[in-house]
């Protein structure tokens, strides 16, 4: 009795103690395991890239510290030495209540590998915050942590809380703001449990599927398209062991989150915590780099803004969002526009205009330079008369006089742009040559860690200058006279991405294209339903989309959808009196996009015509016959234009048989009459009809039904032929 009681009391007292004993820990992944910031990340890790002149990782660490995290494990892989060196030299290594420990790996290729490695080290005890080193936030963790712990107490399977945020509410800006993929999340409105997470949703599909069990289990589900994933997760210890158990989990979202949501055996649950007034966003690509930089300058991320983070008044904030370091040389005639940051020791010449930009330390900017919406890092030399719009210019770049950067250009470290040279829009320029082995996007994800890791540290730590002198001969021509660097070619498939992800604002026509895409989506869906597609659609566009779809499916499906398309085209032609020539053009376009033969066109058109006839009101078979005759008479030219040779004519007869047997049995008594009609209208030649009859000669008895029906007509044809002979 007594012992039992003791045990009980001990357990009770243990519980709060246990919670209190562990300091709040965090895992910071200082490697994005992606290649979105190439070519810059070939030479420097993403977390050390400056964001308003302060390395990204500082924002993340500063937030973690302010949020009450006491111990951070910084996992570094790509360029791990640079990260470790930076952390050691910075203040972070000497904070009293904030312990920063680095964990180094050389062979991790994904977040999954990183977490498995951390699990093996046995350093995490209890709940932890999982974040990557490129996240900027000022949210308070208290409430989210509290919710997480309370849920855990009730349900041991609630192992993770994801932070989400309302994104801008327009359908256009949702995507364009951060340049991320469209995200669909299904959340239970009462419990906030995450039920479905769809980020790599195929663009070609106009619909999103929800599993039926999901709806059966939740009488009410809210599907969100307006939320943004902040990539801040509060996890329980189990998360690490789950990664170890499932050694194929690589990507945090794509594998881990989706894996948990699909797996109903273990029953692990993920919940969401929505933040409203505070800021959280992750720098995923150049576009979000641009957006978040602007947010920082506009102080949405307060207190994590340049002047506060630098401390000791090194940077002053002035009116119109201008941040100026203390020692800069600024010409009187220079126009320093709204929302800019200028780093220490930078010189700016006469009549230079700068707006909405960040300029690093020790830069030299000449006269008559225009800089707009650009990010210029440290020690950059820009000579007179250059123009920069929406570009990223890394450390040590030299732009000779008169050089122009068109929107979306990225100049990596120490590139030299020749005199008067115009760098075309969306170019990526680097001293390093583009890696040659090009896999698909998925495979490349971690390549910056592996390939970058192998060769680069030596280059960076060793003599870069000698390296440079080697490369100096080769690429001169690519960047004009005196230019140094390679312009990376854009790989296939990435073509679409360039404007989506670049720092340049999305051009209007692209926005229009997004809207158009949505229209196409609609078309596809309507056709998926059994209802005829609404008329007045933009045919050529939806075709292009269809063909992508078709690749995945069998040719049979392909044909069915082709037939539907043709039918829709035909019906529209009927209802709107489109000229025959146009219909022919459209059907030909369809044929090309579906990769069909002209035989199929003839069949499909004939099918559409018959369907129209059978769908027009009729009460008796004679009326049906009249309908069919009308349709055939009206549209005979259309049909004829697809009947070039006898094979196609036979195809039409075979199609007609199929119609009579399957889709419209009403026609079967009229088979011979309509065949005759087609003959009369010179649509079918007698050779074709006889050949068809001959072909059927050896067929099964059941297959010959229609030959027998048409026997009289055939007889007549044969006799006519003999007479001629």
């Amino acid at each position, binding site marked *: 009795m007594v012992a039992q009681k003791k045990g009980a009391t001990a357990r009770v007292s243990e519980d709060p103690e246990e919670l209190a004993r562990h300091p709040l820990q965090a895992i910071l992944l200082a490697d994005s395991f992606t290649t979105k910031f190439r070519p810059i990340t070939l030479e420097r890790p993403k977390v050390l890239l400056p964001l308003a002149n302060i390395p990204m990782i500082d924002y993340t660490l500063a937030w973690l510290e302010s949020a009450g995290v006491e111990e951070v494990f910084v996992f570094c892989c790509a360029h791990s030495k640079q990260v470790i060196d930076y952390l050691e030299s910075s203040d972070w290594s000497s904070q009293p209540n904030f312990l920063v420990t680095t964990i180094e790996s050389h062979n991790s290729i994904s977040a999954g590998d990183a977490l498995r490695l951390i699990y093996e080290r046995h350093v995490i005890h209890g709940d932890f915050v999982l974040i990557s080193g490129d996240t900027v936030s000022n949210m308070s963790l208290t409430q989210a942590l509290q919710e997480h712990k309370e849920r855990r107490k009730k349900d041991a399977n609630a192992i993770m809380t994801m932070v989400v945020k309302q994104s*801008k*509410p*327009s*359908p*256009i*800006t*949702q995507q364009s703001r951060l340049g991320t993929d*469209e995200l*669909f999340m*299904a959340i239970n*409105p009462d419990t906030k449990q995450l039920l479905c997470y769809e980020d790599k*949703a195929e663009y070609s*599909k*106009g*619909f*999103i*599927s*929800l*599993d*039926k069990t999901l*709806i*059966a289990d*939740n*009488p*009410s*589900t*809210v*599907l*969100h*398209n*307006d*939320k943004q994933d902040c990539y801040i997760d509060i996890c329980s210890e189990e998360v690490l062991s789950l990664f170890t158990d499932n050694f194929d989990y690589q990507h945090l979202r794509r594998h881990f989150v989706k894996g948990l949501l699909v797996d109903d055996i273990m029953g692990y649950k993920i919940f969401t915590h929505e933040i409203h007034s505070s800021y959280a966003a992750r720098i995923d690509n150049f576009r979000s780099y641009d957006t978040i930089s602007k947010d920082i300058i506009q102080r949405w991320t307060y207190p994590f803004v340049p002047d506060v983070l630098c401390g000791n008044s090194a940077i002053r904030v002035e009116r119109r969002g201008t941040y100026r370091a203390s020692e800069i040389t600024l010409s009187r005639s220079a126009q320093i526009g709204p929302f800019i940051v200028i780093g220490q020791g930078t010189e700016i010449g006469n009549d230079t205009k700068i707006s909405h930009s960040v300029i690093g330390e020790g830069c030299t900017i000449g006269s008559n330079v225009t800089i707009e919406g650009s990010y210029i890092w440290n020690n950059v030399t820009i000579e007179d008369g250059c123009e920069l719009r929406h570009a990223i210019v890394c450390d040590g770049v030299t732009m000779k006089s008169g050089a122009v950067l068109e929107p979306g250009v990225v100049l990596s470290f120490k590139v030299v742009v020749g005199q008067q040279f115009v760098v075309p829009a969306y170019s990526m320029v680097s001293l390093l040559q583009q890696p040659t082995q090009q896999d698909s996007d998925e495979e490349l994800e971690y390549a910056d860690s592996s390939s970058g890791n192998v060769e680069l540290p030596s280059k960076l730590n060793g003599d870069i200058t000698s390296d440079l002198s080697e490369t100096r001969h080769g690429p001169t021509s690519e960047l004009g006279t005196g230019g140094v660097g390679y312009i990376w070619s854009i790989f296939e498939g990435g073509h679409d991405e360039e404007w989506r992800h670049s720092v340049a604002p999305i051009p*209007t026509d692209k*926005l*229009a294209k997004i*809207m*158009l895409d*949505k*229209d196409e*989506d*609609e078309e596809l*869906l*309507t056709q*998926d*339903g*059994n*209802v*005829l597609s*609404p*008329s*007045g*659609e*933009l*045919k050529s566009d939806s075709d292009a989309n269809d063909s992508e779809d078709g690749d995945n499916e069998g040719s049979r499906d392909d044909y069915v959808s082709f037939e539907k398309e043709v039918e829709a085209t035909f019906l*529209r032609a009927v209802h*709107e*009196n*489109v000229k025959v020539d146009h219909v022919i053009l459209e059907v030909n376009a369809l044929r090309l996009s579906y990769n069909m033969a002209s035989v199929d066109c003839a069949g499909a058109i004939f099918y559409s015509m018959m369907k129209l006839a059978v*769908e027009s*009101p009729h009460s008796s078979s004679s009326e049906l016959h009249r309908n069919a005759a009308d349709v055939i008479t009206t549209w005979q030219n259309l049909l004829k234009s697809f009947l070039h040779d006898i094979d196609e004519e036979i195809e039409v007869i075979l199609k007609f048989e199929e119609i009579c047997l399957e889709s419209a049995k009403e026609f079967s008594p009229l088979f011979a009459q309509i065949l005759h009609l087609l003959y009369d209208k010179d649509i079918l030649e007698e050779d074709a009809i006889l050949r068809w009859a001959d072909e059927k000669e050896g067929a099964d008895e059941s297959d010959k039904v229609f030959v027998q029906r048409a026997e009289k007509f055939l007889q007549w044809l044969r006799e006519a032929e003999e007479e001629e002979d």
Partner: protein
Amino acid sequence: MDFQVVVLAGGTSKNLTPLVSKEVPKPLLPVANRPVLYYVLHQLEQSNLKDLIVVVEGKDAALLVGGWISGTFVDRLHVEIAAVPEDIGSAGAIRAISHHLTANDILVVSGDLVSDVPPGAVAANHRRHDAVVTAMLCSVPISGPSESGSSGGKDKTKKPGRYNIIGLDPGKQFLLHIATGAEIEKDTRLQKRILRAVGEMEIRSDLMDAHMYAFKRSVLQEVLDRKDTLQSLKQDVLPYLVRSQLKSEALSNRIPRAEENGNEKVSSQNNQVMVSQILANASTPSFHDLCSVSHDGSAPIRKTHKCCAYIASSSSYCARLNSIQAFMDINRDVTGEADHLLSSISDHNNIVGPSTKLGTKTTVGPHCMLGEGSEMGDKCQVKRSVIGRHCRIGSHVKVVNSVVMNHVTIGDGCIIQGSVICSNVQLQERVVLKDCQVGAGFVVTAGSEYKGESLARKEK
């Protein structure tokens, strides 16, 4: 109000054999001793919607229904009876009477709806949003016997049936997605386009489409004309309208347009208009605005149309009499939990009707109804049942959870559980029925026992 009401009363529904017959078509099936059609007409009258077209399948049935209506609602409602052929579907029925429709808005109600949701509220909601269609949604009723859940009831109460999967906007005003019938068992496919426009969509599986719709007449007629493959309002027309709500070019020429052939050009123009509007309006139009943007002014053609939902409060009663189980449930509910539907009946009808005779030691439990002129012998028990007019019930009879219609004779010692006994049936002595349906005029011989069977006279 410029509203015309179409009541789709149905005819001799196959689901309800042997309850319905040529003499008693579905609209006249008694619910608590009143034809089911009464409940709809009564609600319409209460909402001051008095311009009615009652559509009945079959000429004979139409005569019967018409006779009853003119007898009951003498001058209170302006009713036209229209007979349509059988099996043409609800959309077909509307097509058939299309030339009778003149008002701007049409309220289409199913005649088998037993509900206390005021149709006027649905109509007003429709008008307020200037919607193309407004559908009334109600909570899914829990079917099956509610308390005597001894047999099979458990499964049913655990999982209330799913009738529809419905997507709503955050304000629960607009209908964004609807799946009916076989689609429910498949994975739900939601249109991204609509989802993008709204941002968030609530998906409910606990709501049911109650088959009360308000339509804009011009749109309804045009859709029915253009798409002659559409068969049913519920399964085809409503989903079609919901699906195409952001892309209603197909409907846009209800304002007659000259440039029919320029369709492609127009739609691309439309796109530009929309994009430019979005660009200009950086504070991002919500789904709402998106709808209204195309409404007021600048865009020459409507790009969108509104599909609204009227969600009945969870306390209101709403059920459709479309199966035998529903028939039992509704009879039980109307005498039980939803008895307010009865209390508003104008000609006063008590639970135990006038001039009934009860023998000694006969008990009629709560939630029962005994029609006028019925007689019961000694030591009978009636629990949770409805007994019609002029029935003769012998002694030692037990009637539990059952519906007994008019002029039924029940011999001594019968036990009737969970069954429906139609008019003019004769049950001889000691018949035991459990979960049976006995068609009109049938004679059950003495001492027979049936369980879960459907008994009816052979059709001549």
